[in-house]
């Protein structure tokens, strides 16, 4: 069992891939928090807590849900929207939830507009610009999600969550696997349930 833990950075200008540090992905029914395998139930609670604590909790939907390329994708998009609306209802004044798309993976020159999108080649521009301290990836192809998650861990203190439709992401601080409409809705429910029980970081948050 690896002693490495996947924690908010900034870790290093080029942090190691968590998999290369011995972190293993969860099996079905499980999730991981900081690289430690946990029952999925625990991950819902922790993800909801992190969202409710954050100053700028943000959802980054990727191409697999932004585009209605099949029925399931369109339904997931609706669930993601619901999650965002729930988050908006459940935060306290001063917290600013955001919904910013990752529409594609192309290297954009000279740089992206961080107000309206996040790009896997420059993810930190969006994190820094919007002072995002907690984010969730959903609907991003796994390879691109891993690149982004690792760069964010390398250069920012943002807490990263992955709602992955496949095997999960060790490069996120918290990762679900086999994401579905139900799982996204369950996270929204958990946030609703924990509303008001979590103290936001507002007073202690450092200004960037």
């Amino acid at each position, binding site marked *: 069992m690896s002693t490495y833990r996947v924690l908010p950075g900034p870790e290093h*200008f*080029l942090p*190691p*891939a*968590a*998999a*290369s540090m011995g972190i*293993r*992905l969860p099996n079905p029914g499980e999730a991981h928090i900081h690289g430690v395998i946990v029952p999925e139930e625990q991950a819902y609670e922790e993800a909801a807590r992190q969202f409710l604590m954050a100053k700028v909790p943000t959802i980054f939907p990727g*191409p*697999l849900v*932004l*585009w209605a*390329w*099949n029925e399931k994708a369109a339904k997931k998009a609706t669930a993601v929207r619901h999650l965002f609306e729930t988050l908006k209802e459940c935060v306290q004044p001063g917290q600013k939830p955001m919904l910013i798309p990752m*529409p*594609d*993976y*192309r*290297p*954009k*020159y*000279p*740089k992206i507009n961080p107000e309206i999108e996040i790009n*896997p*080649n*420059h*993810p*930190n*521009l969006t994190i820094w610009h919007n002072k995002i301290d907690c984010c969730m990836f959903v609907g991003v*192809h*796994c*390879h*691109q999600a*891993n*690149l982004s998650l*690792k*760069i964010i861990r*390398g*250069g920012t203190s943002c807490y990263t969550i992955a709602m992955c439709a*496949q*095997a*999960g992401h*060790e*490069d996120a601080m918290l990762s679900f696997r086999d994401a579905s409409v139900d799982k996204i809705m369950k996270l929204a429910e958990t946030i609703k349930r924990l509303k008001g029980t979590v103290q936001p970081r507002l007073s202690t948050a450092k200004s960037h």
Partner: protein
Amino acid sequence: MAETQSLIGTQNKKGQTYTDPWYMLNEALRTPSFFTGSEVIKEAIRRASCDIMIAYPITPQSEAAALIGELFAEGYVGDYFRGESEFAVMSQCAGASFGGARVFTTTAGPGTMRAMENFPMWAGARLPIQMIVTCRGINSPLSIQPDTLEISYLLNTGMMVWHAETAQDFFDWILKGFIVAEEPDVHLPLALCCDGFFVTHTKDVVQLTPADMCLPPYDPYRSPVPCMDMECPPVRMMRDPFVMKSNYISYATHASWQQEVWAAVERSRKHAIRWLDGLIDAENTDAEIMIVASGTAVSQGREAIRMLEDEGVRCGLVKIKTLRPWPADEIREATKHAKHIFVPEFNVTGWLAKEIRATIPDHHRVYAGPHVCGGMTMPPEIIVSEIKTALGMKTFSLAGRGS
């Protein structure tokens, strides 16, 4: 769009039933058959729901590559053709894989070297192509005898590299190889290596899975990167753009991309352990003398151990199944009691011994040899002789040493 899980239980056009791979490979009744290694490759591919195989002649894989052509003619493989060179073949395989097909090819020795530029590209592009390498000599003067030098070049490509010992390994690992390679968290090419002739051209009893069962088809929409078929988002997509251009963070992207390829090799560990029943096999790990080997050197090592037992020398064995991922922890554990570790290899450079030396504590315990340097088989007698000489025991003279 193929939801492959839902296809299990249905039939393909040849009347084979798409079967749960774990059931097919671990529980279904097996039939013993007496086949050459080349025929075994054919039988595995018959059951692999392979979309495309691209062939090119080079000894000793030509027979297998031609036999898969027969499968195509019978309708078991979707498409098949002879490419113009190994470099082209590996690019054609890449094109088919980018397009969402399950792709298989075979190669050997100098052909593998000719195609080499493709392999890190395959890995970087996360293409789960399976390539059989039937190892043979690569350097001048020409040799078609087993050598394993080409494996050492493959070790740093980002591909998974497995080294089969027997035809039975080969049959099982071809099928298991597709499963591990196509896992979305892995999704990497696999070089499944064997020692040419010893495995390809000798007959052996192999336990085959039922011919009316086959693997579920490949689902390109579980891939960690978009499939290039204009059926999935994002529509504005190049596989793969030069991300090292632009500003500093993009340099980090390129570096992270490289790390991600190797992270995927690491992730294959969990799946390979499950499907191959561990990355190594170990016997008598309490012995003071250990032979650590991969490929047919394991078989010869096993025979040497039997001969040594007759003389009262106890010796253990480690069979390394996967070279990438590299079973470092397993090798350290299996050799922790050993005072002398022998690494017999077919190649002249002793790359496996170097890998082991870099892995274990007290690496002076490793004896890099014997080496037969391609061009000949590896008689167990020379392994016995190597061990006895190192231990200061009297040993017979080998004709090859000219005494």
